[in-house]
């Protein structure tokens, strides 16, 4: 076989791979209306504490590591939870669900909008929310987020030099999402794989969280409990109604 024929055959094969990829990549779901988004958020931010307790850490991977540094204080003087991620990133998409569930136990989000991860990345179109444009108020903890790009990887927000320094210090591999709990605990990467959300609508994910045995509830609520425990460590176990639960107390012990 002539070398030219080999090259041509390989070029054809690569073209076929590209066509398969194009054909099998699903279209991104259309973002929900404001009302529909609120309906989903009402479910997500009001998961009953007994259900969270039943799940424990579920099937989430405990990536939370103890770190040492100057205590990180947010703009309102509370311990700061810092998040850096990007809208295209499927692992960030997965992790926002438990973050919203956990942080909603300490305060209130407003302005959260639905989006989905990149259509061309792994775990394409993973349904999620974006922290871009959202605000969070709490009397216990400050939440600061940076979404570096949108789902098409166009620039969105840039970290400050201090935020970038945190990422450089605690996330040497540069993985996202990166979450820093007041410089006492941190993790990077997702605590579960986004494939459990594949092909689901936001509403379907939210509904699945009402069943603690569902394949979505186990990792998402499990991860939410891990995040809740890390935040409780920052707030000195306040509010007690959240942090005094035996499940959270038990997870706190594992965090060290």
């Amino acid at each position: 076989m002539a070398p030219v024929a080999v090259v041509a055959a390989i070029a054809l094969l690569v073209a076929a791979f590209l066509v398969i990829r194009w054909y099998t990549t699903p279209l991104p779901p259309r973002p929900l209306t404001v009302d529909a988004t609120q309906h989903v958020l009402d479910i997500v931010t009001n998961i009953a504490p007994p259900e969270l307790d039943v799940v424990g850490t579920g099937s989430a991977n405990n990536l939370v590591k103890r770190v040492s540094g100057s205590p990180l204080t947010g703009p309102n003087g509370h311990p700061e939870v810092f998040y850096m991620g990007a809208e295209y990133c499927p692992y960030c998409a997965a992790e926002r669900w438990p973050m919203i569930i956990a942080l909603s136990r300490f305060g209130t989000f407003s302005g959260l909008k639905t989006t989905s991860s990149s259509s061309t990345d792994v775990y394409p179109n993973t349904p999620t929310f974006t922290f871009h444009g959202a605000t969070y108020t709490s009397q216990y903890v400050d939440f600061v987020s940076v979404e570096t790009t949108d789902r098409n990887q166009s620039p969105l927000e840039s970290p400050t030099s201090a935020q970038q320094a945190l990422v450089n210090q605690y996330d040497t591999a540069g993985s996202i999402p990166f979450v820093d709990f007041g410089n006492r605990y941190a993790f990077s990467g997702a605590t579960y794989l986004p494939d459990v959300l594949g092909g689901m609508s936001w509403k379907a994910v939210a509904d699945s969280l009402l069943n603690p045995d569902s394949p979505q509830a186990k990792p998402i609520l499990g991860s939410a409990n891990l995040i809740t425990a890390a935040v409780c460590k920052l707030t000195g176990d306040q509010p007690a109604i959240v942090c005094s639960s035996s499940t959270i107390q038990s997870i706190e012990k594992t965090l060290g």
Partner: protein
Amino acid sequence: MRWQALALAAGLAGLGVSIYLTVVHYSAIPVACPATAQVNCEQVLASPYGVIAGSAIPTSAAGIVWFALSALLAAGRVAGRVELARPQLAWAALGLATVLTLVYIEIVELGAICIWCTTAHVLVLLIFLVSLSSSNMARVRT
């Protein structure tokens, strides 16, 4: 002979790329690679396909072995050892089949290309083409 020298150079270059990717895997050094939707080394290398069969051994370690042996075979051919023509072609064919599998994974499964991996893939193709041409010539001579 000149083409075999090219295969030798490609083998050594591929060895360098494979060693670099293996060092990146075992250290905290970030991989030097742009990160866009389509080109993203981190995404490819951190995927389950970045290691051999779920182990801790990076796929690039297999690249070290493959390129090292390819370079040795090419060096043998440069030294005039015609009997290495068939082993070289068989080894290159094995490499090319692996590359096509990896390219399928990158494009279809992951939707991202790692430029370091692509560099290694092009070097494998080059070695295969030299082996194929040299094997044909060796057959003509014998």
